[in-house]
């Protein structure tokens, strides 16, 4: 499905990143570090056009995301139009900025599903990681979401600071009647890459967490679906990232740039088309950016001749670029990559240092506009 020689791909999944503004400051945020540069948000009319065009091309799943999508006052209007067009609409939120009236208004507008993130299962750590007093409000909102009969996903990003509490986290999700739980291991893009030394779990932590996750998957299988995936840095085969470049995923960033995945903005030498200038049809089918890593012709060895290339598409382009400097290399998570040894050595270096006092006391860099300006400024100065 990911080749020009097979059936034309369709953007089945549209991720609408409505804004990078967010009341939370999670240090593992997958948004780009350069969020402060996105001060040119699309207006309502632009978004309505994007929704219409993508739906016509076969998009079915629509995620309203961010930043915090609740910041947008036109969210109800966008949900209403999305529902009229026949999308399955997912709201991916921290819950901050939500109240009972808004949950009700979303229901009336036709919202299908709400996903709420928690940072931890206890108030202190949750509020510390999010940089806001949000824990009790999130719990309250989760109850309201179920009261209105939405399917509810609770998403908890796992890392070294909270993975040992996986049992408490799962007990909390059971208590809140989640239909699905995503125990999302931190992926090291954007802000989490900046904070990797503080966030990467140890192999021992992961081994313990996996036992608990499996226990709850079995115990809760009639009531709740628990999705638990170990961080790919610990694997020997890469993930089938985005199910292949330009295969099913289409992300629109707050400024209207169209991306084959939400982390792709960092890749060099690509000019991502903007929905203000081009139709979704043109962007998906004809733009250089969306064709760049489609199919298999762009691959180098060891991917090019690998029998598994149709399964994992060579892994993640962003990870290949971040860890090897060349986005056409194999994702170094793969043990066939010549860079694999270096990645696992780095994992072990962090594992060896973690727990030591001086290492753990290094402060986290929180995701906020001030830190974004500082970090992007540094990048610009270094370039």
């Amino acid at each position, binding site marked *: 499905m990911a080749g020009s020689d097979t059936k034309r791909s*369709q953007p*089945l*999944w549209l991720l609408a990143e409505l804004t990078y503004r967010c009341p939370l400051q999670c240090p593992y945020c997958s948004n780009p570090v350069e969020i402060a540069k996105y001060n040119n948000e699309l207006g309502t009319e632009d978004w309505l056009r994007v929704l219409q065009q993508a739906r016509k*091309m*076969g998009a*079915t*799943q629509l*995620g309203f995301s961010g930043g915090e999508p609740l910041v947008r006052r036109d969210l109800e209007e966008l949900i209403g139009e999305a529902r009229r067009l*026949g999308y*399955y609409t*997912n709201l991916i939120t921290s819950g901050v900025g939500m109240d009972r009236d808004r949950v009700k208004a979303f229901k009336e507008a036709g919202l*299908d*599903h709400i*996903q709420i993130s928690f940072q931890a299962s206890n108030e202190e750590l949750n509020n510390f990681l999010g940089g806001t007093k949000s824990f009790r409000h999130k719990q309250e909102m989760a109850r309201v979401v179920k009261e209105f*009969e*939405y*399917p509810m*996903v609770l998403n908890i990003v796992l890392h070294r600071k909270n993975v040992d509490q996986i049992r408490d986290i799962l007990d909390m999700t059971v208590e809140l009647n989640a*239909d*699905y739980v995503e125990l999302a291991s931190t992926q090291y893009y954007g802000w989490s890459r900046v904070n990797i030394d503080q966030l990467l779990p140890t192999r021992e932590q992961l081994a313990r967490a996996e036992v608990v996750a499996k226990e709850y998957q079995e115990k809760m299988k009639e009531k709740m679906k628990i999705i638990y995936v170990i961080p790919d840095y610990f694997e020997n085969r890469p993930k089938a990232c985005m199910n292949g470049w330009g295969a099913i995923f289409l992300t629109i960033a707050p400024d209207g740039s169209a991306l084959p995945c939400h982390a792709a903005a960092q890749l060099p030498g690509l000019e991502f088309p903007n929905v203000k200038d081009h139709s979704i049809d043109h962007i998906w089918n004809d733009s250089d950016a969306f064709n760049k890593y489609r199919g298999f012709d762009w691959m180098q060895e060891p991917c090019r001749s690998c029998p598994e290339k149709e399964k994992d598409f060579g892994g993640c382009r962003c990870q290949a670029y971040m860890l090897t400097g060349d986005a056409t290399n194999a994702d170094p998570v793969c043990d066939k990559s010549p860079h694999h040894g270096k990645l696992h050595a780095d994992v072990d270096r962090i594992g060896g240092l973690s727990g030591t006092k001086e290492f753990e006391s290094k402060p986290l860099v929180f995701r906020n506009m001030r830190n974004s300006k500082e970090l992007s400024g540094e990048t610009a100065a270094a370039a």
Partner: protein
Amino acid sequence: MNDIPEIAPTFRFQWEEAQDCYVILYPEGMVKLSGSAGEIMKRVNGSHNTDEIIADLKSAFPGVELDNDVRNFLDNARDNGWIRYKT
């Protein structure tokens, strides 16, 4: 009267033009249904019981022996959480 199936509120069922088939939609996911599965599911509307659904299918597809297939499909749909029975 206690075997009237309906679509569970946490799932959505609809015709999907771009896929040319009926689909079941749920958070961040989609299942494409076969032609016969779609024919069964579109009769699951919270007002007809299983026998009535089977009778309706038989009149739409005369001569097809479908009782067991329909019951098996509805059992699977319930196990998947797509449908529930009104009580």
